């Protein structure tokens, strides 16, 4: 297990430095004057330009600039947003809980519905339910989620008035930010109805963001179950006289879980991508909306820092998934 883990980490380190390099190059690929690109200003007078060039170290050789950048990244210095003049990392940390809250709920929804739905379809292969589930999941998989979000808003917010249109909580509530997670903060606050409001705000974005992972998890669970149910050890389990429930939920699922967990881990990238769109539609103050706005404002330090952090997070999640995979798979857990 340790050797397996070491190999995984060994793969990640060069990728991490590759990402740092990529973000370093990124800002240099933007056409235009480097100082202007970094400051987001136009028409800087020549003397100030020269001074800034030196101040920002852009007159040094590229290799030296890169080392300086790497050192900064490792210290946690990701530059300063030129639209807010705030350090990028601090801005990220203040917005990140909102994204985590949304993403976590979406994963939860995807897992809680996707896995049972997939198991059932795998068990009842060829049945009406199986066909319906497969059709629904393929539709979910093909869904343009920006449109799906708008449809839900149109139906539930605009026409039925069941859910609010945007934001994280009703403006009439004043909830102190303790954890950054609105639902938890609302519970902690004394405001009555704040929690309910937070949940109602969370509902539609969660459904929209969960659609794609839900479809993928359900399909994957089904095919993993079908694969496992055909294995010899399932026949053995049935020959032992175990109940169908035990055969499926213990013997089959335990094995099917190995690929399912991998797929759930892969969804994190999909989710963070989906969060960009979902947050934009629902005006959810998270990382996705932040990045889209940064692009619109040409706030390159934000984009650079945001990309770096998100890529690192994705790699971290992948590492965790690899560990989970190792723990679930006795062949890896108990070495060779």
């Amino acid at each position, binding site marked *: 297990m340790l050797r397996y883990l070491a190999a995984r980490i060994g*793969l990640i380190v*060069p*990728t991490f430095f*590759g*990402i740092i390099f*990529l973000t370093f190059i*990124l800002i240099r*690929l*933007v*056409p235009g004057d480097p100082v202007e690109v970094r400051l987001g200003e136009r028409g800087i007078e020549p003397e100030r330009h020269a001074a800034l060039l030196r101040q920002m170290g852009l007159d040094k050789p590229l290799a030296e600039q890169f080392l300086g950048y790497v050192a900064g990244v490792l210290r946690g210095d990701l530059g300063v947003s030129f639209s807010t003049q705030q350090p990028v990392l601090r801005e990220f940390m203040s917005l990140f809980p909102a994204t985590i809250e949304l993403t976590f709920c979406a994963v939860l929804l995807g897992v809680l519905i996707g896995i049972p739905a997939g198991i059932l379809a795998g068990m009842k*292969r060829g049945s009406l339910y199986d066909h319906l589930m497969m*059709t629904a999941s*393929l*539709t979910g*998989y*093909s*869904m*343009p*989620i*920006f*449109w*799906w979000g*708008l*449809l839900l*808003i*149109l139906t539930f917010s*605009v026409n039925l008035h069941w859910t609010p249109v945007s934001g994280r909580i009703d403006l009439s509530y004043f909830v102190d930010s303790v954890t950054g997670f609105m639902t938890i903060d609302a519970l902690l606050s004394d405001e009555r109805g704040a929690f309910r409001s937070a949940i109602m705000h969370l509902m539609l974005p969660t459904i929209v963001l969960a659609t794609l992972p839900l479809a993928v998890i359900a399909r994957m669970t089904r*095919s993993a179950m*079908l694969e496992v149910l055909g294995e010899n050890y399932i026949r053995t389990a049935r020959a032992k006289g175990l109940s169908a429930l035990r055969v499926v939920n213990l013997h089959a699922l335990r094995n099917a879980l190995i690929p399912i967990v991998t797929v759930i881990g892969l969804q994190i*990238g*999909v*989710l*963070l*991508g*989906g969060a*960009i*769109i979902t947050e*934009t539609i629902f005006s959810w103050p998270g990382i996705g909306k932040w*990045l*889209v706005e940064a*692009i*619109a404002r*040409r706030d*390159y330090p934000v*984009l650079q820092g945001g*990309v770096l952090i*998100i*890529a690192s997070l*994705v*790699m971290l999640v*992948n590492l965790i998934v690899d560990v989970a995979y190792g723990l679930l798979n006795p062949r890896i857990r108990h070495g060779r």
Partner: protein
Amino acid sequence: MAALETGTTKPSSRARRESLTAETWRSLRRNRGAMSGLAIVVLLLLTAVFADIVAPHGPAEQFRDHLLQPPVWSEGGAWRFPFGTDDLGRCVLSRLIHGSRLSLLIGFLVVSFSLTCGGLLGLVAGFFGGTADLLIMRAMDILLALPSLLLALVIVAILGPGLTNAMIAVAVVFLPHFARLMRASVLSEAARDYVVASRVAGASRWRLMTDTILPNCVAPLIVQTTLSFSAAILDAAALGFLGLGAQPPTPEWGTMLASALSFLQAAPWVVTLPGCAILITVLAFNLLGDGLRDALDPKLKR
């Protein structure tokens, strides 16, 4: 050695390939989902080709007396504009029909680019191994570490918004998938007996690659291509929706949707119909791709 070469049958021979195609088709025809997907794709293709004839109006033609006219099935609609008009009095149906051209073109260009470049990278990595393999696959890992939409956004942010740049962005996003797939198929094919046999028999590297390995990697690539087609259309539409893809007045479906957002309440059809078009197109390609996978890969057939 010559005996070895003739003795080990090469499954890429013409006869096998033909029977494979026939069998794939037979299996595909039994798959109702795949057939409906194929039907829709063909229909879309015809629509796109004959857009000028099929569409009742020009995509940019404005009818100032008919702003936001509802579609024919709701009150106030008329057959003149079956899907209604948008805020500038343009016929939604005509714009959708012309949009199908764009979507299919986007899918085609993006997938051809990723397939060619990614496939080539994977082929080189898998066939030559060593440093080339290491460098290429590490680079692909870096691209894969970024959520695909974020990567596309970053590329568009650097290159500037626009349909061409959006297509380049999406194409780059798909590169690693093709490269990985190609590399994996090359590696698994290269380990097969017939490839080893022809290598022992002294076939040149180039011949080995083009004659024996490449034809046998086709099946997974076809599936990946079809599925990427739908993903490309979806991603390009998403970029359009975020205002980073095709710019108005281009009748790209995602862009149409975005520019009609302020009328969501007053004229929902301007928003819902382009979305329907995207969903149906993407669904059709996915149905076809799924069917092809089942037909081409007996291992996955259930």
